[in-house]
């Protein structure tokens, strides 16, 4: 037990910070908000060359095979500078394929991800945006050796630039223990696939995606037919924990800006940071960022250890949704009027953290999951010990 970063982890964090702070200015972030692709391919390539895109991809597919905690550290630093790159969506899909894809699927996709030549994304949510099997209606009808897709996916990240998208579709009605859901790889540029841009608070790239008689082949299936829901859950858990990394990274930077501002901004003849009410707001920001960070990395660590991590993931996201949001809002308050001005950079962080707090599960969704683990399985609970497992 030593929950602080090891020397090696700290080194990785430092290197990532140095690189990202040099390469990603707020000017670039603003430029990418208006850009058609939403990311600079040259920067993406550099990140590939640094080995970050293959960080947690197995070595035989061009990656480094390092723990997901390491990737988490990179995402935390990416969040810190709000790096406008499709890192999160690509990693969520890539790690899912690395875990459960066929050899052929891995061979086709993972080396291309590692070397920066392929962007990925994933699509689970629909109009009922809850991340539960019942909300998945996109219809995949068997058709000879393949399937025909009809329906709509919502809130899909980076669909405009992705070359592959992992998609959860309904292949059968729910029956018994089977949710009737399957996971497929689709080509965003295929026939009958149409995306409509959504305009988000984060001003990043999200789409509604409509499938009209889009045909996929047998080889598109990931995992077993009808038994895709546990795979989707594992994908969502990884994605959620990695999103928390970004939130924590962004919130910490935002807090640091408030700290600097409080030291320098003078009111009533003294720095506002000398007022106790401001000091206490800052202390709370520190509690909240630290808390979110520790919960997040504990969840990632459990994944690396092969331990159940769903409750830990939900703890992290439920906490970050509220507390990272509180941090960036408090930072706005400490900055007074200037923080509300378009030309001042602070809102770049505020808008992103706010958007992220609404993705991959709301506070209520995650607490419902935690409550179920605590209350619906017989047996005594004890903090710091594994929860009782259902039969």
């Amino acid at each position, binding site marked *: 037990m030593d929950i602080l970063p090891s020397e090696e982890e700290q080194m990785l964090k430092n290197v990532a910070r140095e690189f990202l702070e040099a390469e990603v200015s707020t000017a670039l972030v603003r430029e990418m908000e208006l850009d058609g692709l939403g990311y600079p391919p040259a920067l993406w390539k550099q990140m590939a060359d640094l080995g970050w895109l293959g960080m947690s991809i197995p070595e035989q597919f061009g990656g480094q095979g390092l723990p997901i905690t390491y990737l988490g550290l990179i995402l935390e630093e990416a969040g810190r500078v709000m790096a406008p790159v499709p890192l999160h969506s690509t990693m969520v899909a890539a790690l899912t394929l690395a875990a459960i894809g066929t050899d052929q699927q891995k061979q086709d996709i993972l080396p291309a991800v590692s070397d920066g030549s392929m962007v990925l994304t994933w699509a689970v949510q629909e109009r009922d945006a809850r991340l539960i099997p019942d909300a998945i209606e996109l219809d995949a009808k068997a058709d000879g050796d393949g399937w025909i897709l009809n329906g709509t996916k919502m809130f899909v990240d980076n669909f405009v630039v992705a070359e592959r998208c992992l998609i959860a579709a309904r292949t059968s009605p729910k029956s018994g223990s089977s949710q009737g859901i399957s996971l497929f790889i689709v080509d965003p540029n295929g026939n009958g696939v149409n995306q409509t841009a959504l305009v988000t608070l984060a001003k990043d790239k999200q789409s509604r995606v409509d499938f009209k008689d889009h045909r996929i082949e047998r080889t598109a299936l990931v995992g077993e037919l009808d038994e895709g829901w546990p795979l989707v859950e594992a994908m969502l858990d990884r994605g959620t924990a990695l999103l928390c990394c970004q939130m924590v990274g962004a919130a910490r930077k935002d807090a640091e800006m408030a700290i600097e501002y409080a030291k320098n901004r003078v009111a009533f003849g003294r720095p506002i940071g000398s007022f106790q009410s401001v*000091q206490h707001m800052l202390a709370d920001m520190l*509690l909240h960022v630290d808390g979110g960070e520790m919960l997040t990395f504990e969840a990632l660590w459990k994944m690396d250890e092969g331990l159940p991590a769903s409750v830990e993931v939900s703890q992290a996201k439920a906490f970050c949704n509220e507390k990272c949001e509180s941090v960036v809002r408090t930072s706005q308050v400490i900055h007074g009027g200037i923080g509300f001005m378009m030309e001042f950079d602070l809102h770049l962080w505020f808008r992103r953290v706010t958007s992220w707090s609404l993705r991959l599960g709301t506070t209520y969704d995650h607490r419902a999951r935690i409550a179920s683990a605590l209350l619906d399985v017989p047996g005594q609970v004890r903090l710091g010990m594994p929860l009782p497992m259902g039969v």
Partner: protein
Amino acid sequence: MDFGYTTEQQDLRQEVRKFIDENVSQGLLDEMEAGEEGGRGPEYRELVKKVADKGWIGISWPKEYGGQSGSRIDQYIVEEEFMRRGIGIGGAGSGAPAILAAGTEEQKEYFIPGMIRGEIIFALGFTEPQAGADLAGLQCRAVRDGDDFVINGQKMYTSAAHYASHIYMMCRTDPDAPRHRGISIFLIPMDTPGITVRPLWTIQSDPPAPPGTTYGMPRTNETFFENVRVPASCMLGEENGGWYVGAMGLNLDRVGASRYLISVRRDEDIVNWVKENDFNGYSPAENPAVRDKIAEMWTEAQVCRLMTMRSMSLVNRGGNFTYEGSAEKVWAPEHGVKTTEAIAQMLGPYAQLLSNSEENIEDGLFAHNLMGSFQSGINHGSVQIMRDQMARRGLGMPRG
């Protein structure tokens, strides 16, 4: 990053549990229930000796003073298992870290082994009638007289003073120096002539709180010092340097199982209770609002745990605290209050029934916790003062 226990640590935990099962007698439980000597009577002291023989007290303290020079995490495991049976063993709040850091060789050789064997118990004599949160305003005087000091003054809320062997106290030794630079620490036997202890009964004294209640203590004290003459060798650290020794000691004393556990035990209790009980068929466990709140509180409790683990990781690495101890001391007490009040709303009017009431729940545990939990946010550095320290020491904010 490593969030897990080693195999050896898991084994240690099992061994401690087994030891407790085999050695905690009904006599000890009765003695603790009766609350005599703050629950540290003969049976307790007997147990402490056995635990000390196992080498389980002060595991992280140096070997030459009777410790094991071991890991703070190991020590935590022992503390945690005993705390969960309501038994405080060594560790946090003991004053040992300050003695180890600032004591003379004689002091370390005398006090640390004595503390390990449960023969030396300290009362803490910091607070005074006019000096609480603003501790540096303390006035209790110690005047040098040859090789002795003579102490006059009053200490408030000296909780263990009625059964402690010694008091670990702050006195003013230079009234002309700036406030923080005229204070010294003394380690004084309680049986020194001139010391009088008078009880102060807390709101938990009638009826008594059930064991395990957060701040269920029925009694604290005020302690008077009248021409108390002690040798200068009772001084801990340098003359007039006591403020810094005291602050460092307080910081380290905040780390450990006790602070964390008193703030999170109710989170476990309520989950375990609603799973097994109902009110005439109504189960709060099925109420969506209750479920949401329980999950929220459980998550906050995890942060208490992680903050404790972080502090101990820092101690193991040689301990360089800036704000982490203070952070723990804000988060845990405030969480304890939030969860206690949330639980009360889950149980409704039953949560007001005290330990001696018919129809109470768990001997009135939740009701008494409502009376006690806020107290841990006041003492040992209030949450306001802790936030000040986080902002000033942790974030470099200017003083007001």
